[in-house]
């Protein structure tokens, strides 16, 4: 069934379209009519009409050819235009890629910087909790001065104590010596008295 229809179709197409489509058909028909006109034994009027008709067909063919050439030119120029746009877009893509890589590097740097800043802040917080160095130095200086003063006073008091001790020592030793001398004198007085009284008693 399909094969029969195919044959029918082929035959119908050959009958209708035997000369090819459009311009091709026109050229074939022109060629055929030219050969017919050359070989036709017809009258001059008919020959002239056919000649005119052939000129008309020729003009149509030339016109069609001119149109096709212009369309071809236009296509070439469109192609060039598209090529240009294509290279332009490619360049844009590569530059965008590069920019993206740059930005990625920038973001890495910025993240590193942020991390460093945050570490710095965290350490600064801890350091702030400790007292200021100048304050501590000043306190240390004040304490030093106080210490010096107090040691000065201590020295003075020690010196005074020594002096008083020595003076008391002198005083006490003098008193002791006097006491000793007095005792000695008393003893020698007593001895004298004792020697005298037996002497007196002996008489």
């Amino acid at each position, binding site marked *: 069934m399909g094969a029969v229809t195919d044959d029918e179709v082929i035959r119908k197409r050959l009958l209708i379209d035997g000369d090819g489509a459009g311009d091709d058909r026109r050229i074939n028909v022109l060629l055929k009519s030219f050969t017919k006109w050359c070989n036709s034994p017809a009258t001059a009027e008919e020959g002239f009409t056919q000649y005119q008709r052939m000129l008309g067909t020729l003009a149509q063919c030339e016109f069609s050819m001119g149109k096709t050439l212009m369309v071809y030119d236009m296509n070439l120029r469109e192609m060039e235009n598209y090529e240009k746009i294509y290279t332009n877009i490619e360049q844009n893509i590569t530059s965008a890629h590069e920019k993206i890589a740059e930005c990625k590097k920038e973001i890495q740097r910025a993240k590193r910087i942020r991390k460093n800043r945050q570490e710095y*802040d965290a350490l600064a917080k*801890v350091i702030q909790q400790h007292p200021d160095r100048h304050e501590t130095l000043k306190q240390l200086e004040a304490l030093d001065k106080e210490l010096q003063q107090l040691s000065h006073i201590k020295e003075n008091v020690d010196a005074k104590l020594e002096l008083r001790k020595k003076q008391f020592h002198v005083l006490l030793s003098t008193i002791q010596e006097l006491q000793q001398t007095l005792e000695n004198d008393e003893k020698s007085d007593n001895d004298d008295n004792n020697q005298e009284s037996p002497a007196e008693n002996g008489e």
Partner: protein
Amino acid sequence: MGPVELLHMSVFSQSFSPCGRFLAAGNNYGEIALFSLSAALSPDATGLSQKPVLTFTAHEGPVFSLLSTDCHLLSAGNGEVSAWSWTELIKKNIKPLWTKRPNYKSSLEIPEINSMTINSRDNSLIVGGGDNNLHVLDLEHGVFKAVLQGHSDYVHCVTMREREAEILSGGEDGAVRMWDSRTAQSVHCIDVYKYESCARPQFGKWISCLTTDSDWMLCGGGPSLSLWHLRSLSPTSTFPLSGCQRQAAFYQDMILAVGEGPFVSHCLLGGDVKAQIPCSPQSLNTLQLNTNSTEHRVLTVGGSSAHIDVFTNLSYRAFSLSF
């Protein structure tokens, strides 16, 4: 894995592969699941790409800690450390390279290992766990070369201070101890709960989250999450987060913290909480950033659910991987 087990699953640890294309997650059943990030993040990802490419039982107890080195995945569970080769795991070969157990004094019960960290200077692994001590394993020779004693209760978290080669550990006894890795002696001991600005006596004094970037330290748990300056050993800012934080990380100029509560908190170093991004698990245990790969830079969080949330942009949850 039945639906009841899935309901009771908790994700305790995560680790990204050295190539950055895979995520290993450990849960409370002792399993480790490997997820393919490149499949899950590709434009034609389906529901199947959010399932693990490999799940295997690694330990008998929960896997509390996972760590990735250049070519190995180290997992801690049931008191022992196992090493797996990443290339073998990607080929779905689940035989461990080695399994070692620190010398625990008591042989009656096996203390769990809560946290591990790598000291890249002398290629050693430091594990801390339930026996109140930190054990140092030399990865070259495979022997435990030192024991750091000092904590009076079990150790929750261990981290490494790269520049000064110090180990920091936080424990249930509320103390953050700093150890010198060469002499294995405790250099400093900070009792965080004794500082008024951080202490939260209603939660206790335990420290469950500890992280450092050599100059600064974040610690939290019972006391509120606080930022400490390590050279002066003084707390500089406290973060007003309700609930106890379980893991925190420094990221660019922000601090990311997860803990109780179904959100990831973004905080600034000054002490302000900038944002709290909601997630699917009700409380979160672990947070990891994929720094090993440039095209799969994601943040993943896991917690008390069988789902692991993946954030491609830190401001919102993109999708979830599920066990």
